[in-house]
């Protein structure tokens, strides 16, 4: 009543004070309406506040009882930094070891972890939240990432009503469980979706990809959107029995042929061996003219700047057939095939194509062979980086050690793909390379980037037994640099080396608190 009067305003009429307890009304003296209203409002607000009663509400379910082991304070600072995004390589080790020991973040930190954990780190943070963290996450929709799948909202609800990211995730999960029903889900909504949504939803078909998916994918080849067509081609190329894959294989085999050595006399044989074509040679004849039907198979007509049309088509074709095809086709081992390809006129296109195919089809054998073949080839660093993780773990150790023996400190990227525990040989090679590079760097003052990246990987991944000696070299280098304070480059390097020492110190402390 009072509020209504106040909202309307006394100039539109004043009917006196109504709807108030007698005591309140009686306390307001005779005054003009505005004053009455104000005084009454003031008295009424104090009256109400003084007479406030608590309201009965249902009691909540407390968190489940659990004796949790909290992360010690000094490790917590490291976790704070990992949360901010530092120590990206070290983070998986920290997380797994802490989880293994059953450590949990303290309640004071739970909220910041739930708020700030980056998507790619979330799986690792989950076990560190403990029972209470999970209980907390259940109460806030923004923190649903922390919940195990079982507690999440029903998958089909997420598929039908979620945003794009949730729908993709739901489809992925469904594909993992029942590929056919997931495809049925997709077919049901297909016509109604926009182009970019269609493309995003097509990608989960990669999970559990099988021959039964071919009809649907073939239909996608005629889709209006270029992105959808490209994705469909990519998926079909991975199905060896699909029509598309067969067409591509036949075409590839017709362009790149293997000529077995003709019967030759002794001199001929000698000449052949000298020219490296003793086992036969590669005859590459890419098509001379573009065929329109090829664009349906995912090939593009116009080459990029600086590349010839035929080389471009060859490269594309080789990149979408499985490398294993060549072994089948020619009976040659990967190594010799690659060697022949490099030696041919179309070497660059062939090698780029083979590298791309290796990545696409995850072929470990070809990754190994290609890597070794490309070690000495200039300009191949980018491809080598891409195919290195595809080799088997054992092969990676071997390749890494081989690379290190050449004295090039730029191996940090490779080391990041070498899972622990490292074999003795790799440990020793790393240690020797670090020492060597450090000595060279301090003497010549050259570019330190590769060395520092190597140093970081080594500090985090070497076993602690070797770290004492490792630390001593860095300390030596810092001491040496600090004698040259006039040289700004030396000061800069000294600061960087001191950070390395800090990192080693951290690592040693971590090992002490949270042993392996």
């Amino acid at each position, binding site marked *: 009543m009072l509020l209504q009067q106040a909202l309307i305003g006394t100039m*539109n009429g004043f009917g006196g004070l109504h709807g108030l307890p007698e005591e309140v009304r009686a306390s307001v003296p005779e005054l003009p309406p505005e004053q009455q209203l104000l005084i009454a409002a*003031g008295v009424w607000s104090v009256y109400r506040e003084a007479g406030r009663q608590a309201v009965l509400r249902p009691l909540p379910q407390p968190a489940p009882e659990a004796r949790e082991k909290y992360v010690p304070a000094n490790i917590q600072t490291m976790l704070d930094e990992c949360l901010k995004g530092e120590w990206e390589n070290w983070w998986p080790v920290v997380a797994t070891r802490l989880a293994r020991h059953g450590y949990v973040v303290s309640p004071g930190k739970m909220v910041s972890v739930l708020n700030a954990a980056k998507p790619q780190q979330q799986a690792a943070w989950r076990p560190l939240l403990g029972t209470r963290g999970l209980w907390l996450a259940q109460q806030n929709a923004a923190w649903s990432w922390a919940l195990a799948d079982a507690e999440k909202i029903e998958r089909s609800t997420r598929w039908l009503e979620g945003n794009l990211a949730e729908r993709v995730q739901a489809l992925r999960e469904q594909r993992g469980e029942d590929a056919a029903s997931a495809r049925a889900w997709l077919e049901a909504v297909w016509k109604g979706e926009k182009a970019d949504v269609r493309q995003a939803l097509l990608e989960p078909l990669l999970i559990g990809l099988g021959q039964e998916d071919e009809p649907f994918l073939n239909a996608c080849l005629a889709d209006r959107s270029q992105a959808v067509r490209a994705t469909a081609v990519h998926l079909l190329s991975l199905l060896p029995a699909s029509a598309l894959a067969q067409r591509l294989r036949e075409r590839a085999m017709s362009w790149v042929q293997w000529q077995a050595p003709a019967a030759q006399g002794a001199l001929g044989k000698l000449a052949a061996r000298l020219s490296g074509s003793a086992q036969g040679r590669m005859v590459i004849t890419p098509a001379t003219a573009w065929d329109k039907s090829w664009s349906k198979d995912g090939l593009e007509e116009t080459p990029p700047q600086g590349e010839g049309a035929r080389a471009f088509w060859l490269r594309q074709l080789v990149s979408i057939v499985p490398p294993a095809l060549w072994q089948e086709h020619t009976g040659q081992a990967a190594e010799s095939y690659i060697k022949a390809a490099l030696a041919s006129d179309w070497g660059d296109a062939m090698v780029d194509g083979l590298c791309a195919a290796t990545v696409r089809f995850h072929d470990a054998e070809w990754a190994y062979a290609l890597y070794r073949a490309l070690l000495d080839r200039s300009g191949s660093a980018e491809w080598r980086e891409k195919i290195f993780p595809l080799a088997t773990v054992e092969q990676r150790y071997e390749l890494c050690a081989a690379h290190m023996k050449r004295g090039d400190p730029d191996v940090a990227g490779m080391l990041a793909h070498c899972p622990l525990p490292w074999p003795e040989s790799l440990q020793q090679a790393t240690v020797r390379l670090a020492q060597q590079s450090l000595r060279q760097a301090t003497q010549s003052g050259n570019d330190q980037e590769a060395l520092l990246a190597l140093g970081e990987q080594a500090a985090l991944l070497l076993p602690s037994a070797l770290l004492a000696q490792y630390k001593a070299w860095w300390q030596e280098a810092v001491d040496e640099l600090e004698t040259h304070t006039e040289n700004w480059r030396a000061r800069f390097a000294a600061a960087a080396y001191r950070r390395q020492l800090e990192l080693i110190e951290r690592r040693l402390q971590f090992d002490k608190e949270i042993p392996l």
Partner: protein
Amino acid sequence: MQLTEQQVLALAPDAQVAGAGKKLGIAKPWGNIGSSERAVWGECKGSGSRPYQVRVDRSDYAAKCSCPSHKFPCKHAIGLLVLLASEPALAAPSAEPEWVAEWLDKRATSAQQKIERAQSPSEVDEAAQQKRQEKRAGRMDEGLAALDVWLADLMRRGLAQIAGEGPAFWEKQAARLVDAQAPGLANRLRALGEEVGVRDDWPEHTLAGMGQLALLLKAWQGREHLDPRLRRELELQIGLPAREEEVLAQGEQRQDEWQILAQEIEETARLRLRRTWLLGRHSAQYALLLHTAVNKQPFTEHFVPGTSFRAVLHFWPGSYPLRAMTDAQLENTGVPAAFWHAETMEGFLDRQADALAVNPWLQRMPLVLSAAIPVQQNGQWWVLDQEGHGLPVRSHSVNRLWSWLAHCGGRPADIAGEWQAGAFHPLAMYFNQRYQVLSD
């Protein structure tokens, strides 16, 4: 007397010093660390040729360092305290070196001088002071009369009309009040203006606030006939608090051991205002310390939440004494492991009713609720007691509320906070017997 790292870092004037100080909290750069009853000290190797001498007074954490930094406490002082937080054994009791003793003695004498000055008020030109007071009173009366008219005008036009007015509408009137020497009223008005259109219940809230202002003005008009304590309270509310010297000499005094419940720093354009809430061990009385710092200047006194000290508090005269100040005789007494007193919900509501009866304009009340359980539903937060009685909860930062929930796990625990504008604002609690600030 042990501080945790979190408490030490809270002493730093800004984040940069806190970070730099934390980095110095390792043993390597330090030498000659020692402690005595009065202080701790150490020498820190810096980028200069001679190490910096750092001293920290144990009674109030004032620090002095020989480094050229403008900030207090500097990163070296923070570093020393951080180091000692994790390795207290490093500061073995030993004889105070000269550079430490000299500084401490000088501080003691200047503190003594301050008390003496307060106790013997200086000679003042009586007549001139009288005239100044009259002039000020005249200006204020004018300003308050103008506010009266302004409020009445709003009632005439109706609150619905003002919903569309921007902050300038309120700011203009608030500025007039500041000119009229009534900053307390100005703040109230500004606060009302900020909530228009923001709170769901803004019409009721605004009307209630305006009503309270009207009551204040009415009471002020009849101040001659009021109880002197109520009259002092009115002066406080309008923004004419007594001066520190006056409070030291004439205000109500209470000797007790005081627990620092919580602390909040409010930043405005040019000023930083720090509120520190205290709870007396034997008296179970609450108190509020207010300190200001201009711009980037540090606060001159340090009170570390979660610690306790013995002192005589001097309260500002009023009908419900809350605001107080310390004198120089302060003695740190350690780190309590729990809140010394806590109220039931019913107990608090009774206390609030009694307080409002003597001071209807009370806006904030500190309290420690016992065995409290936070609960949230669809973004609305409540605090419940074990029988399910609930009061509304609000906070500047929802993370603080989640942090509260995380710490107590939905089980009853004592919580310290403030009752303000019809809701409970939680500030700090104890977890595993350690004091925890609920962070933003």
